[in-house]
């Protein structure tokens, strides 16, 4: 195999790559920096980068965005176009797109296709797709892979589809113009608690959901994630589809209905008026089945069969016959003993649907259940949902699959909440400092702690540190106001562990040191002098700057440092993975109670394991995306942004040195 007559990988970035999951290849915190990633890897001088970045953003229609826009603030469609811009910046000769619009609603998908058609005009482009229709008018050639992985057809789209369309459709391929298959009728067994047709199960009042993003320094951004204007009735024998743009709040709505995200206004209540969020896990499970967007984090068992049986076993209603039948219908019977985590994405999604329905819950909440399915498995998944409706269950699904939307009784459109006016929070004095000076300022007072002759001097040092905190946590001059309460709350929370540690050391010293209060006090205060500076300064380290400073100022090896920076970018997603496992466990009837230590241990283990699985998966995907942008050969890389040492850095180091000075003077 050759690209441009040479082995692939000879020229970094010659093969551009866009992956299916929006954001899975995002490396940097801001838009311009992310596009520049490949340019850094090929060692382009920093001053020539902005022009390349600008050109790439223009090519994908994102030139209206400010380069400093956080990558986390983009919609799904914008994120995919950003990935395309990152690939185009390296002037690829070949562009590979792996289902680039599979996770997007139709309008967002259209913007991504436009970006490909116009931005990549003239490039050899290969698109891997389940749903080929919208691409057909732009495609010159179509290659069909058979189930055995061999090429079964190869030719112009017109010719292949005209000659073999029926045969391909019968084999499960979504052939344009062929109507969606009939959903299968599936015997699901009875509901756990049968309800009369139309009986209300749940009511979701008009809700407003805020998303809070906490920062290390104790401040937080609040944005509106969802606003719904009319109540949603989840009623027996009724199917509802939530549709709307990617990132518009569909998944948030589902999680709110399930009682997993507390709305800031509005309630979700059962037919007897109880709040869903307050029901014990064993009562939620018979009421609700749950298929989250990340189906892998909802899979909790070690074999596929156990997965389907899990909730039923907890509730005492497990039926192996029904479970096996479901696996059979979904084409998973041969995987019965496999570990669910080893299944493909499409298989995991089907398994999650089966596991959500097997115990006969009143309602099923399914997030994008049909993504990545061929015609055969699509008919099985939609068949499960509709058979659930037929047995008197309720279905609520968030979807952008028009064929699924056709099948439901009610369609609710979810609008993206309007962006709020930016509430610019004034920055703290300490946030003017770079990461290295902040670490130095946290470290230097340790010398003072070690040299301090006793508790009196340590107390003076602590007083100095308090003054430092007052100055450091104040708003930067000229930004209005003098400080933010959240910052001090954050500091108090960070100080608490240190205070406990100080007490503990003081106590043990008192026990040992023949109950001498002064010795104990000296030991306790020495510990405080060691840990208090960290509590003040470390939270103001911007993880996004860390790699730049470690790489450029400390000259640490570039690749490990950039890898660390990319991982720190995703700290928030690790927390999300952790809580999603908790959600799945709750809705599968796996309650947690402090009165049962085993349930707590099981919960901690499952959540940690789920977080590790997700982080390993993200690392593997990101590695592919980064190597496609020349990271493997990025040993001599350049840096798009400088890591300056500013006046503030010098000042904070000098301020921390004052603690040592005080101790030295006291000892003289």
């Amino acid at each position: 195999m050759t690209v441009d007559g040479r082995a692939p990988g000879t020229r970094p970035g010659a093969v551009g790559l866009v992956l299916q999951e929006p954001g899975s290849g995002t490396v940097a915190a801001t838009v311009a920096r992310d596009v520049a990633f490949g340019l850094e890897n090929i060692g382009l001088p920093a001053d020539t980068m902005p022009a390349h970045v600008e050109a790439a953003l223009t090519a994908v229609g994102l030139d209206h965005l400010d380069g400093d826009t956080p990558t986390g603030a983009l919609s799904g469609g914008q994120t995919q176009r950003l990935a395309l811009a990152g690939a185009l910046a390296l002037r690829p000769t070949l562009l590979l797109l792996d289902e680039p619009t599979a996770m997007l609603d139709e309008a967002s998908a259209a913007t991504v296709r436009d970006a490909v058609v116009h931005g990549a005009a003239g490039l050899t482009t290969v698109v891997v797709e389940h749903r080929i229709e919208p691409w057909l008018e732009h495609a010159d050639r179509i290659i069909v892979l058979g189930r055995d992985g061999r090429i079964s057809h190869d030719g112009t789209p017109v010719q292949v589809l005209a000659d073999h369309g029926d045969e391909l459709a019968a084999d499960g391929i979504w052939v344009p113009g062929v109507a969606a298959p009939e959903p299968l009728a599936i015997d699901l067994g009875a509901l756990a608690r049968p309800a009369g047709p139309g009986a209300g199960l749940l009511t979701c009042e008009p809700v407003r959901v805020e998303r809070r993003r906490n920062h290390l320094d104790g401040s937080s951004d609040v944005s509106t994630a969802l606003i719904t204007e009319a109540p949603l009735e989840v009623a027996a024998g009724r199917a509802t589809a939530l549709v709307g743009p990617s990132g518009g709040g569909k998944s948030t709505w589902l999680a709110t209905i399930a009682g997993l995200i507390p709305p800031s206004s509005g309630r979700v209540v059962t037919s007897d008026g109880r709040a869903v969020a307050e029901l014990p896990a064993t009562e939620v499970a018979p009421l609700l089945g749950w298929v989250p967007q990340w189906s892998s984090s909802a899979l909790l068992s070690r074999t596929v069969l156990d997965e389907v049986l899990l909730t039923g076993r907890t509730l005492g209603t497990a039926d192996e016959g029904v479970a096996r039948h479901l696996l059979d219908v979904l084409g998973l019977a041969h995987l019965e003993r496999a570990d669910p985590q080893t299944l493909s994405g499409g298989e995991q999604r089907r398994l999650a649907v089966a596991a959500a329905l097997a115990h006969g819950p009143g309602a099923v909440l399914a997030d994008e259940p049909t993504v990545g399915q061929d015609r055969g498995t699509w008919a099985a998944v939609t068949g499960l949902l509709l058979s659930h409706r037929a047995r008197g269950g309720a279905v609520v699904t968030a979807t952008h699959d028009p064929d699924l939307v056709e099948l439901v009784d009610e369609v609710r459109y979810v609008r993206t909440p309007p962006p709020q006016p930016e509430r610019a929070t004034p920055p703290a004095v300490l946030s003017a400092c770079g990461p290295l000076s902040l670490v130095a300022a946290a470290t230097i007072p340790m010398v003072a702690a070690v040299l301090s002759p006793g508790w009196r001097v340590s107390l003076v040092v602590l007083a100095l540190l308090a003054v430092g905190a007052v100055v450091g946590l104040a708003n930067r001059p000229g930004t209005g106001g003098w400080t933010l309460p959240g910052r001090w709350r954050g500091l108090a929370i960070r100080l608490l562990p240190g205070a406990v540690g100080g007490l503990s050391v003081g106590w043990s010293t008192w026990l040992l040191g023949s109950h001498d209060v002064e010795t104990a006090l000296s030991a306790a205060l020495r510990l405080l002098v060691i840990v208090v500076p960290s509590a003040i300064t470390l939270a103001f380290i911007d993880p996004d700057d860390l790699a730049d400073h470690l790489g450029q100022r400390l000259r640490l090896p570039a690749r490990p440092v950039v890898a660390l920076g990319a991982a720190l970018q995703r700290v928030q997603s690790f927390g999300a993975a952790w809580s999603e496992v908790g959600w799945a466990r709750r809705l599968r009837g796996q309650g947690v109670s402090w009165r049962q230590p085993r349930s707590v241990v099981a919960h901690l283990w499952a959540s940690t394991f789920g977080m590790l699985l997700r982080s390993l998966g993200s690392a593997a995907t990101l590695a592919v995306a980064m190597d496609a942008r020349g990271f493997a050969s990025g040993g001599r890389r350049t840096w798009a942004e400088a890591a300056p040492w500013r006046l503030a850095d010098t000042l904070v180091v000098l301020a921390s040195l004052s603690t040592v000075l005080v101790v030295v003077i006291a000892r003289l």
Partner: protein
Amino acid sequence: MTATKTPAASSARTVLATGQLMGWRTIDLLTIAFLGVAFGVAYWGYGLIYNGPISALGLAFQPLFGLFVGFWFIAGVVGGLVVRRPGAALACELIAAIVSALFGNQWGVTTVVSGLAQGIGAELAFAIFAYKAFGPAVAVLAGALSAPLEWIYEAYAYFADWTWAWKLAYLPLMVISGIVIAGVGGWLLTRALARAGALNPFPPGQEVLERRAV
């Protein structure tokens, strides 16, 4: 991405890192970074329990703390077991320590010293076997060796006022904790991750695939 270095003599053979031992692939770097950050989040959470219930346990006989320190060694053991390259254990432990400090724990920037002390210890265990053995015995050794340097550091920095009897009692308790929680626990965790298919690009995942293929 197969990792064949020795002929497939038995189904239980040890798979080593691909290519040059020091030739870190991108996925190696990212996996250590991601594991380090994930364990850092877990360390931070453990620190909260460590402060409350566990501290209370140690009030009468403080060296009993030693029985609970093993959890702090687990990132190094798992990092070394997964990536199987020089530096993996140390880097994973160090990153976890840095992240838990950034979140704000009870030890602040000194956590980094602990991360180094523990990481070097774990790294030593893998180095002794020239990065060619990664079984439960090596995992246990890595857990045990995570303790001594940390013990020296803590005895000097935190517990300088303890009697020597207490200090000497603290070391074996730390080692036992390292063996059980980090060694056995880390090995079991790595095996569970490999069985879930999450380590397929790495030697432990390859071992699982080969065993299944037999």
